[in-house]
């Protein structure tokens, strides 16, 4: 990935507000209330990049993912895919573009149609988009997709049904279905959070392999920062519909400056009992995205909040190239536990 390339997907000022007006009377009075699920998000995803959207539940990460593939229409703002504005193109063109963007959902137990064989499940997007030239071509593409997700030999799987598969295998089918149309961009929404630990890493490694092999850019929606730091290139940390901090994994996970990202990162448990981190436990829970307060959305939970934070909203500012933070008083970078492997590497460099 290099910055000189054009981004494959980018969004500007993306907003999605859901109307939650109580009823007739509320509408009569005119006080329309909105749930601001996504409120002004800008991101650029470059080819073959893995961009993570992370945050707690209700922060708008999934909604952003859906907006990026045009599954829902934004209230405001635009999504540009390969130079074309999804909101401006004709319906026909949108259909064509959609074949280039795919989604992988969280729950492989409900995202596959139980009455379709794996062959039909995977061939369905080919048929919808009229991609295969004939039956033989279709079969070849399905087999290739099954092989790419390591469900081999493919002939063992084509006529099975989802109920015959384990969770990990089902998620592989969901991935095969996404890549069969040769997409350029995939939104993966928590694809491993329903899976067991020993199977999770297999799927993560598979997603990585597919990214390199098929040159696919991903937006990876997750609440798990350790997964994000394992698989991601860049990351945006969201809170109540807004981006708090974004940048490369190194900048954000290994040197966060926003009090919220710092709290989120220090809350992640470590699998190494020898690393004792100074844990800062953030009190409270995210507020409601309805009727958000003025100023910084995180201010009510922030221990460093000052007068200005409650009055004016901080905008994203670039602290160093690529590292953006929305905070009036960024903290000193949070360095994570000492890693001997890193220290050795740095020694070798010097």
């Amino acid at each position, binding site marked *: 990935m290099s910055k000189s390339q054009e981004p494959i997907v980018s969004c500007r000022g993306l907003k999605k507000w859901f109307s939650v007006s109580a009823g007739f009377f509320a509408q009569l009075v005119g006080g329309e209330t909105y749930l601001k699920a996504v409120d002004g998000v800008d991101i650029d995803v470059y080819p073959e990049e893995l961009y993570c959207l992370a945050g*707690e*539940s209700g922060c708008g990460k999934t909604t952003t993912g859906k907006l990026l593939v045009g599954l829902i229409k934004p209230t405001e703002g635009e999504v540009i895919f390969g130079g074309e504005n999804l909101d401006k193109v004709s319906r026909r063109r949108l259909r064509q573009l959609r074949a280039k963007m795919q989604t992988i959902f969280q729950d492989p137990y409900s995202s596959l149609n139980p009455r379709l064989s794996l062959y039909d499940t995977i061939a369905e997007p080919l048929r919808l988009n009229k991609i295969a030239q004939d039956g033989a071509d279709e079969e070849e593409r399905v087999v290739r997709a099954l092989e790419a997700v390591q469900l081999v030999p493919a002939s063992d799987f084509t006529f099975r049904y989802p109920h015959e598969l*384990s*969770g*990990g*295998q089902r998620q592989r089918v969901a991935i095969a279905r996404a890549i069969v149309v040769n997409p350029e961009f995939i939104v993966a929404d928590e694809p491993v959070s329903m899976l*067991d*630990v*020993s*199977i*999770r*890493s*297999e799927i*993560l*490694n598979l997603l990585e392999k597919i990214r390199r092999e098929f040159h696919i850019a991903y937006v990876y929606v997750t*609440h*798990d*920062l*350790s*997964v994000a*730091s*394992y*698989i*991601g290139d860049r990351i945006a940390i969201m809170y109540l519909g807004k981006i708090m901090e974004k940048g490369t*994994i*190194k900048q954000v*996970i*290994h040197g966060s400056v926003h009090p919220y990202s710092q*709290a*989120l*990162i*220090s*809350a*992640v*448990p*470590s*699998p*190494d*009992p*020898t*690393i004792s981190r100074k*844990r800062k*436990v*953030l*009190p409270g*829970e*995210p507020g409601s995205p309805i009727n958000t307060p003025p100023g910084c959305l995180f201010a009510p939970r922030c221990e460093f909040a000052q007068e200005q934070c409650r009055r004016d909203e901080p905008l994203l500012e670039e602290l160093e190239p690529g590292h953006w933070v929305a905070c009036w008083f960024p903290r000193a970078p949070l360095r*994570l*536990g000492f*890693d001997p*492997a*890193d220290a050795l*590497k740095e020694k070798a460099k010097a």
Partner: protein
Amino acid sequence: MSLKVENLVVYYCMRRGDCRAVEDVTFEIESGDSVGLVGESGCGKSTVAFAILRMLPEPGEIMSGHIYFDGQDIARLSVEEMRSFRWTKIAMVFQGAMNALNPILRVSDQVSEAMLKHNEALTKEEAKEKTRELFKLVGMDPERIDHYPFEFSGGMKQRAMIVMALACDPKFLIADEPTTALDVTVQAQIMQLLKRLVKELGITLMLITHDLSVVAETCNNVIIMYAGKIVETGSVLEIFQKPWHPYAQGLIASIPSIEKSSDQTLASIPGSPPNLLDPPLGCRFHPRCIYAQDLCQVEDPPLLEVSRKHNAACHLASGRIKDDKWSPGKMEVE
């Protein structure tokens, strides 16, 4: 307040056959300890907890084995005797706090119900007062005891569940996945609270979870289960730094760590856990084990001590079979 489980066998007897959910499980938890019972879904960890409380859902049944609580075998108690024992000696925080509270009862009523049932001398006012104290203990506003569950956030519901478990001053607490479905920041709050309860009230904690990282941060000792059997037990430090069982090694090497730089490679364990209606002969892990040999397919390895207070159930660990590629310790991933 020690718990000793000996050769526990629990089956779910169904028309399709017996689901051998827990087979020959033996472990001991000392007073004041905090122990993590970990494993993947379907490994029998929750079944062990329900068996200890004698609350196995139908058609689960303790087929054999003993559960000694302070020397008394509670697997042999009658239903009536068990009822007075449950909640006053051992209590449980259930999985899925979001749905475990009754939505149409005030939280205070739900908590005091348990108190009043177990202590007939207690008046309603006293029970309420105690609920207030418990709310303070878990870091909630005591003014909110009369609220309904829908007025609570996820983290507060989980705290209310802990209050309910503490209602009759138990000395042994089983927490079954207390933080699944909660956000990381709230998870950290709840874990901190559980740790504090162990420290301040001298409660013995058995934490059931699939998340090894949570165990690494919260517990002193670990029991790892696979397909209804214990594969390894030991102190957190021993297990995480020098796992012996190939399953434990693979499991530990497959957790991403936020501390590591991004060029780490995660191990994975190919295949999936066996069907417990018809578990494989020999070691239940052998179909997925990269070191499996003939012996593993026919003989089930017993849980043996490999170093002080560290047990593993593997023929490699006991030295019955050899493999040059295997050695105790963290798995190296290329």
